[in-house]
């Protein structure tokens, strides 16, 4: 497979590279690629640096371990420090996490935008202010509902369960151009129907002259007299070794590495926020998976996962959905091993996995620890743990209502439950927080926007307080959790903040 013009990978580079440009963007995910496309459209000379590799649509298969190795940071095996551990995954490839996420595209809830405005004084963030950016994001990424023939039976069962319980449910909105329903979202969409950054904003920016350097790790943001002046880094050789150096001088430095890597890079560069909030306020929408066994065939991998969301409990901070896991991932989280695991997995095609997405309270922190690198600390608050347990219970209830015969809960040592009555009896006793198997794919809030430099890391438009020329453009900016899939918020904010940069291009020198 050839590499598109404008992309340079480590294999293409024989010696150190020095560049100068208008804007250098660190990261090519939802925030970075959107910034690149917007700025390139405005005629800015853009260089994008991506730590991960370039993996085109044609290389995506259903081999989930291969995907974990090539498309995710650290094989998708991030772990927070704290009790319980939270497993988290970050995309690391051209296109970032949008290549490996489920593709849910929802506008930021109005009450969340209002809260950000009220609590942090964030400007121009009302529903009306954001409307044109949401509309533009949805147009670029073909956001819409699934074609009915692509919906999997696992999602239909969750829908039936919700209907039996009388709970409200909505069809999921995705960035997809007639999704085929391959159910391969987490390993890269093999048809390109998922309109990730890899197939939208990245080629859009490249077509306008942007240059993208893949396999390149940025070590530092450089500064001169307090202002950001570029970045330095190195190309990563296969196996992780250091290759040639890359030095970029730029009028504007835009950091979009995600809510873990962005604060880590900024702190590594010696940048401090007067607010003391850089790296703090991490929210991660904790998830936990319920595994339900049915008598009849489900074959949940026939058709797209998460076709619906149960919204009945959204006011409580809970969204429930069915998220079919491929066999390697399901086996990894099953509370069994050996012969018993083999017996459970033999029923793979009768399984529905589902779970809650929980609004949390920003209790995490990202820190660089000498000798250990970037570490993520997260304390599951009691109220959030209780919400997570309730979400698990509600999910299990819906699955029983849909006809599940047996349900495995994500609590260490919990026996399988075979009826709603058993479920109630089991959960009548408190579930120890440390026993909950928690994971996350939504990481937010570690460089929050606030008009007050003593409260936030950036201003209302992502400009780092006190460091001219430095802008943040990812979910780090969120002053709190969105309570909903965050990708569209990241894209819309990047569009809005790019517009601001363009309006102030004389000030930035781009």
């Amino acid at each position, binding site marked *: 497979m050839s590499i598109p013009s404008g992309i340079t990978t480590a294999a293409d580079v024989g010696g150190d590279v020095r560049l100068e440009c208008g804007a250098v963007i660190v990261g090519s995910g939802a925030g970075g690629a959107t910034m690149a496309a917007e700025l390139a459209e405005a005629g800015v000379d853009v260089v994008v640096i991506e730590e991960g590799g370039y993996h085109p649509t044609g290389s995506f298969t259903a081999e989930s*371990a291969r995907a974990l190795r090539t498309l995710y940071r650290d094989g998708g095996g991030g772990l927070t420090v704290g009790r319980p551990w939270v497993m988290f995954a970050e995309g690391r490839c051209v296109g970032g996490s949008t290549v490996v996420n489920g593709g849910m595209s929802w506008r930021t809830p109005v009450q969340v935008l209002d809260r950000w405005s009220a609590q942090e004084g964030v400007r121009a963030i009302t529903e009306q202010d954001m409307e044109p950016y949401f509309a533009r994001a949805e147009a670029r990424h073909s956001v819409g509902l699934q074609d009915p023939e692509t919906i999997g039976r696992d999602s239909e069962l969750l829908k039936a369960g919700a209907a039996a319980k009388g709970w409200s449910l909505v069809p999921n909105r995705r960035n997809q151009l007639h999704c085929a329903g391959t159910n391969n979202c987490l390993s890269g969409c093999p048809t390109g129907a998922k309109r990730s950054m890899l197939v939208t904003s990245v080629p859009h920016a490249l077509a306008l002259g942007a240059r993208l350097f893949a396999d390149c790790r940025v070590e530092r943001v450089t500064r001169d007299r307090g202002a950001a002046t570029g970045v330095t880094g190195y190309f990563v050789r296969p196996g992780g070794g250091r290759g040639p150096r890359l030095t970029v001088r730029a009028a504007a430095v835009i950091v979009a590495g995600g809510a873990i890597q962005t604060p880590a890079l900024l702190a590594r560069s010696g940048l401090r926020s007067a607010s003391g909030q850089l790296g703090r306020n991490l929210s991660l929408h904790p998830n936990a998976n319920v595994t339900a066994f049915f008598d009849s065939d489900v074959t949940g991998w026939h058709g797209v996962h998460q076709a619906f969301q149960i919204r009945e409990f959204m006011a409580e901070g809970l969204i429930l959905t069915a998220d079919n896991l491929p066999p390697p991932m399901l086996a990894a989280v099953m509370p069994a091993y050996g012969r018993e695991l083999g017996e459970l997995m033999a029923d793979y095609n009768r399984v529905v996995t589902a779970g809650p997405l929980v609004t949390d309270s920003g209790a995490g922190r990202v820190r660089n620890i000498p000798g250990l690198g970037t570490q993520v600390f997260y304390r599951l608050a009691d109220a959030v743990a209780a919400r997570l347990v309730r979400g698990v219970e509600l999910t299990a209830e819906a699955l029983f209502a849909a006809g599940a015969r047996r349900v495995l809960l994500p609590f260490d040592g919990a026996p399988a439950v075979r009826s709603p009555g058993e479920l109630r009896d089991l959960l009548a006793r408190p579930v120890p927080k440390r026993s909950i198997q928690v994971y996350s794919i939504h990481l937010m809030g570690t460089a929050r926007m606030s008009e007050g430099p003593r409260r936030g890391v950036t201003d209302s438009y992502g400009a780092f307080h006190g460091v001219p020329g430095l802008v943040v453009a990812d979910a780090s900016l969120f002053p709190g959790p969105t309570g909903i899939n965050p990708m569209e918020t990241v894209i819309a904010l990047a569009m809005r903040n790019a517009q601001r940069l363009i309006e102030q291009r004389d000030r930035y020198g781009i």
Partner: protein
Amino acid sequence: MTAGPTITPLSARVRRVTRRFAEVVCPPGMRAHHRTDRVLAEFELMLGALAPTARKALGMAFVALDQGARLYPRSRGRRFTRLDDQAAEAYIRALLTRRGLVARVVQRLKGFVVMCYYELPTVQREIGYDPAPYIAAVSRRRLESYGPEIRAGEAAVTSVKVRPDQSRRGGEQMSKGGEQLGGGGE
């Protein structure tokens, strides 16, 4: 396209423990069908994708698991790799049924190893999971049903121009020690 991570060979010691651990935590089909080496090969590939600290921690965890068996009453002072099947299984069960850090670590090791087992295509087919033909079929159906709309949508991505009112660009490329290659489209 970027090359994938390279294989990170296990040390002989860690390999022995991992092999024995896999024999206990993977379904019996692994040994019965001589799949252990393929599971270990997957495991080594996966190891290459981990952060160096995680890789080191994983190796240390396996060594600790091996030596920790000496403290387990039924092992009579033997290491995990020296235990017979029954004792090895009982040891792992004892670790997994504890609450706290040790159980969590062993669960994680188990998750890692069984993930490699269920990545094997033969194992996937045995449980009725064979996605490649399905993906091919629905991909065809998609193009047959919506081909023109899809092609138009894809073409729109790159048929863009710099906004007419925006012409200024930033700095030019300074110098480049390495060669930059460019090819065709994806």
